[in-house]
């Protein structure tokens, strides 16, 4: 049976809960002051809170009687309507960041009681699909603000586990709301008027969800529906937008806009995350666009954990509500939206109880374009490729140099690089595909069959040098 939440806030604009020391039992879906407030923009079209809520209630009443909603919408407004409707209908939104065939099939098998919410054709997935575009935009119907129980599981985000299977991380509605509140406090949003969040990261990514969906919902902001990444598209988005904006982006995108000296009209702030931003780049960006550039440090498991104003220095400031501890080479955080102690996958040097330096990821971990994978898992995928006898992925200087992409050394006599890549593409997220991949006669394994880090580095230098030499 389908179940729809009947609990509705008394009237928009009035706080439906009191701020107590303990976590309240419910949080409203959104906190905008009035039903006429703008909650989203698509090009120069504004969507009001009332329109949004009508679409949410209408969609919620038409969702299939299942448990999980796999939200693959690319348009951020569609995503938000789908996410909110699922929440109201007590469905858990699944947020995969990868659309490759094998992970999609694994997801369908793991969550057979799921359906797909989408706004385009999904070919890699066999689950029943609901086209969200057909349900958005009703002119009448219910438009109350849903009150969502704090402990309701709102979403499941995924990271790649070392076994090669994605690891699921459940997010309660309470933890998402507390995360959005922490984000606002970290950037002092209460002293800013409502703005529009423009993102170059997908809403399915934890960082994208926090900054481009939860922040607008919980701080009375609007979100930009677009999913532009090209410099010319971002410029047009900002030109058409009838509201000052913040850009939620990554160092890869920021570097691109800087190198193009892209005009970003109406921009008031930039937030970057997914990988560290060089201080010189942040300073250049602030000089070019005359806006502050902030960085977020976080992870899928915990969400935002700390921030820094990069131009000022390398130190990160922990979110106010969190505590951090360091024990035997590992660092953990707890409190606020994080909950119980969470062990971090990065190497961290604590300067005091509130500030720390980020030294880099643990050696098994690679981060490309905000996506994280275990080298062991990638190597397992590589070893399953037809005709591959031996092989290893390699991350030069942990991604600090070069293009930040991985390379690979593969022993596969008689197999073409194209065939290996085609096979790999079915098994891993394409951002981790090796660029380049070197076919080699053998790998420098030691007597116990291991590939020591230093030996691999020397080997990599030699192979890359001779490859350059061959190309001339």
């Amino acid at each position: 049976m389908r179940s729809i939440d009947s609990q509705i806030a008394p009237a928009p604009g009035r706080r439906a809960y009191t701020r107590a020391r303990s976590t309240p039992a419910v949080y409203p879906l959104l906190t905008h002051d009035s039903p006429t407030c703008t909650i989203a923009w698509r090009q120069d079209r504004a969507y009001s809170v009332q329109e949004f809520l009508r679409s949410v209630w209408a969609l919620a009443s038409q969702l299939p009687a299942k448990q999980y909603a796999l939200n693959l919408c690319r348009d951020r407004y569609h995503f938000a309507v789908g996410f909110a409707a699922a929440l109201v209908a007590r469905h858990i939104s699944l947020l995969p960041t990868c659309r490759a065939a094998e992970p999609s099939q694994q997801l369908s098998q793991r969550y057979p009681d799921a359906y797909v919410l989408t706004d385009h054709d999904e070919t890699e997935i066999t689950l029943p699909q609901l086209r969200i575009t057909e349900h958005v935009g009703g002119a009448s119907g219910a438009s109350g603000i849903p009150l969502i129980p704090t402990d309701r599981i709102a979403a499941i985000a995924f990271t790649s586990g070392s076994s090669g299977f994605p690891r699921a991380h459940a997010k309660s509605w309470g933890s998402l709301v507390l995360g959005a509140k922490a984000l606002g406090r970290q950037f002092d949003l209460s002293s800013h008027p409502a703005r529009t969040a423009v993102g170059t990261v997908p809403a399915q990514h934890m960082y994208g969800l926090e900054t481009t969906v939860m922040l607008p919902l919980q701080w009375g902001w609007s979100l930009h529906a677009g999913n532009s990444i090209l410099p010319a598209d971002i410029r047009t988005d900002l030109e058409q937008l009838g509201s000052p904006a913040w850009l939620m982006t990554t160092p890869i995108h920021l570097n691109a806009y800087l190198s193009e000296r892209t005009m970003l009209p109406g921009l008031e702030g930039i937030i970057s995350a997914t990988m560290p931003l060089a201080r010189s780049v942040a300073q250049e960006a602030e000089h070019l666009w005359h806006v502050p550039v902030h960085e977020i440090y976080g992870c899928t498991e915990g969400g935002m954990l700390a921030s820094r104003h990069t131009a000022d220095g390398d130190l990160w400031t922990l979110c106010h509500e969190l505590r951090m501890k360091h024990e035997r080479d590992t660092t953990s955080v707890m409190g606020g939206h994080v909950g119980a102690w969470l062990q971090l996958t990065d190497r961290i040097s604590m300067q005091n109880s509130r500030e720390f330096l980020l030294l880099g990821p643990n050696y098994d971990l690679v981060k490309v374009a905000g996506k994280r994978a275990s080298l062991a898992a990638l190597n397992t995928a590589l070893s399953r490729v037809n005709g591959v006898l031996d092989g290893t992925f390699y991350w030069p200087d942990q991604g600090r140099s070069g293009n930040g992409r991985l390379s690979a050394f593969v022993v596969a006599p008689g197999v073409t690089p194209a065939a290996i890549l085609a096979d790999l593409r079915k098994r891993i997220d394409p951002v981790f595909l090796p660029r380049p991949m070197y076919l080699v006669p053998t790998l420098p394994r030691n007597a116990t069959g291991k590939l020591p880090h230093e030996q691999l580095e020397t080997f990599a230098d030699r192979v890359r040098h001779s490859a350059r030499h061959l190309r001339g």
Partner: protein
Amino acid sequence: MAPPLETGSSTQNELEQDLARLIVESLRLEVLPASIDPSAALFGEGLGLDSIDMLEIALALSKRYGVELRSENRAALASLRALTAHIAQHRTR
């Protein structure tokens, strides 16, 4: 190196070869530029490029040819041949 295909003008072929090199170099692909099938898909199937690749290609095209790529020109990225036609029409240098 495979001989250039006998289609279009010779400058078109030159541009196509330049673009194949630009794609291979800017994305550090392990294929010979001449081995890119001019009619095969660059994204999705074929070379299977992703959105960061699209950003890198857009930057390289802007720098070398003064052409600003937009998502509405996505059809131009359908294949090397489509890209060649697009750049030939819009290049400013």
